[in-house]
């Protein structure tokens, strides 16, 4: 991989980590309302995955979407502004943390009903098939989503219709506070894809380059018209499910053990070891991410609230 690309991936991961830490602070200050689900620990998943897509490839995900939004190319300014509910947010302050989208970046949302966006993903992919274009739909979801009926309806349909979809399960071990083995009849999620005759693979989600490599291969498979592919990415969230999580379902030692597998730390070590960049160069990247984040928070805080007269805008598209 070229140095420029390496540094870009590193920048994305550091920016997302710092963004999420800052979001937690803004939440505690009461500046972010509602629910807030942080992506800390899972940065390598969408960073590696989305770095492998082409511009015509669509991305759709669940509610833990800030990092995915950043990786799709939405500016940090409009992500923070959306968190603060400002008019300059990517969803104009109407969506909030769980509902970010920017279709100009082929990012089709942040969807907050668990599993409900999987059937929608089949529709995104159907449009490409219908028009004969070569786009691939990348649909991300958590392990918990694989227990709801929508999952089974959607992946069955994707196979029956041979749709160009890459299903990506971010298995972070818990659906809220319920461990995978307490909720799913199979603990290796990709076995569910196996049941629908969908080719599948799994990858260590704490290693951004491994994720990127497998995603490159999977996306090309799908693009060739081979139908859906299912990728299970094993990862872990270092913070609670959301900000209001007492974390009674896991032990501090378990979290600590995973934190030793920090995806940013792993990537940092690998870049240095392989001579991809120097420690100083990586520090410069970290400083740039910090500066961009600070500017974004400033931008968001000084942005206007949505005007009251816009309350009824966009309920319907027809005039």
């Amino acid at each position, binding site marked *: 991989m070229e140095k420029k690309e390496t540094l870009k991936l590193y920048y994305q991961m550091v920016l997302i980590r710092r963004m999420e830490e800052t979001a937690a602070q803004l939440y505690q200050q009461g500046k972010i309302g509602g629910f807030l689900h942080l992506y800390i620990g899972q940065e390598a998943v969408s960073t590696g995955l989305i770095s492998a897509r082409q511009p015509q490839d*669509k991305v759709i995900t669940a509610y833990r979407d800030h990092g995915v939004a950043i990786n799709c190319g939405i500016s940090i300014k409009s992500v923070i502004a959306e968190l603060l509910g400002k008019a300059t947010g*990517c*969803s*104009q*302050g*109407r*969506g909030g943390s769980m*509902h970010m*989208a*920017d*279709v100009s970046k082929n990012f*089709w*949302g942040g*969807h907050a*009903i668990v599993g*409900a966006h*999987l*059937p*929608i*993903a*089949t*529709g*995104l*992919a*159907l*449009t*490409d098939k*219908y028009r004969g274009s070569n786009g691939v739909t990348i649909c991300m979801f958590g392990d918990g989503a694989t227990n709801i*009926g*929508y999952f089974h*309806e*959607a992946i*069955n*349909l994707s196979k*029956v*219709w041979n749709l160009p979809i890459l299903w990506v399960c971010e298995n972070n071990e818990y659906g809220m506070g319920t461990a995978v083995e307490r909720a799913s009849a199979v603990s290796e999620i990709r076995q569910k894809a196996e049941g629908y005759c969908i080719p599948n693979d799994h990858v260590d989600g704490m290693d951004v380059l491994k994720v990127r490599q497998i995603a490159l291969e999977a996306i090309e498979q799908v693009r060739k018209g081979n139908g859906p592919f299912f990728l299970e990415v094993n990862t872990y969230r270092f913070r609670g499910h959301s900000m209001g999580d007492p974390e009674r379902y896991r032990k501090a030692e378990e979290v600590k053990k995973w934190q030793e597998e920090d995806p940013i730390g792993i990537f940092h070590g690998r870049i240095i070891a392989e001579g991809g960049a120097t420690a100083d160069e990586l520090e410069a990247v970290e400083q740039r991410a910090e500066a961009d984040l600070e500017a974004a928070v400033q931008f968001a805080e000084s942005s206007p609230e949505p005007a009251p007269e816009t309350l009824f*805008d*966009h*309920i*319907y*598209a*027809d005039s």
Partner: protein
Amino acid sequence: MAKITMREAISQALWEEMERDPDVFILGEEVGVWGGSYAVTKGFYDHFGGERVRDTPISEAAIIGAAIGSAMTGLRPVAELMTINFAFSAMDHIVNEAAKLHYMFGGQFILPLVIRTVGGGGRQLGATHSQSPDAIFAHFPGLKVVAPGTAQDAKGLLKSAIRSNDPVLFIEHATLYQVRGEVPEGDFTIPIGQSKVQREGRDVTIVTYSKMLETSTKAADELAKEGIQVEIVDLRSLRPLDMEPAIESFKKTNRAVIVEEGWRSFGVGAEVESRLYEAAFDYADAPIQRVAQKEVPLPYNRNLEQLALPQVEDVIQAVKEVL
């Protein structure tokens, strides 16, 4: 004007819109090879092919989800749910996704999708297959809900629904498919969200829609024999709800009966009655009456089923109550 059945009218609208716009396609259970469980899409599969007339598995959430996703990205799907009772299996996608995504993402994309479905009782299908839950769907801003009572309205409204850039739930009635009505030849549309006076009269206003338009018309015919002139306002769309013709009529007759097939509690009649009072309380010469389905899960037995459903006699009685 040709006299055709409502089935033919709906079928014509679909056919003509598919000929007009290559982005329009149909998906649903048994819409293709079978020809539609109510035979509305008979012949479509052979003419348009399997890419545009897509048979689906029995997966209501996936049907509506796929319709939403393809509409978001530029197609104009017409999804068929075999009956409105099965819409509950896709409830999240209808009311929580289709009705909200345009707003929630700040209008970034449109959702030009139509969900055709079939409601109503009276065919001895039992409690799970005979419902008229129209009011539930009309509750949600972001969704449009249309329920025609004549062949002409069915054709014109379905064409408007397909051309609309918003999600439209298009509710047909299982016992109206064979009913004939005059329908203009060729291309015409009827705007969504416009009620219509289907029959003029000076003595009492009936506000109704869908199958109950037929029931109310029969009641009006009977009442006419006694010299009672009934005016019938057909809502045609439940959301957006156009109250103007009903309010104007009520101001003229000062008496109103609302007739719906669904249950009375929290129903269409409750909403319409409330709006009539809000807009024209001073015009009321008698308390407004509602005719609705009796509050039981609809039984299979024919006599019991008919007892529970609103009948012509119930409408006549309610009209006499307000006179």
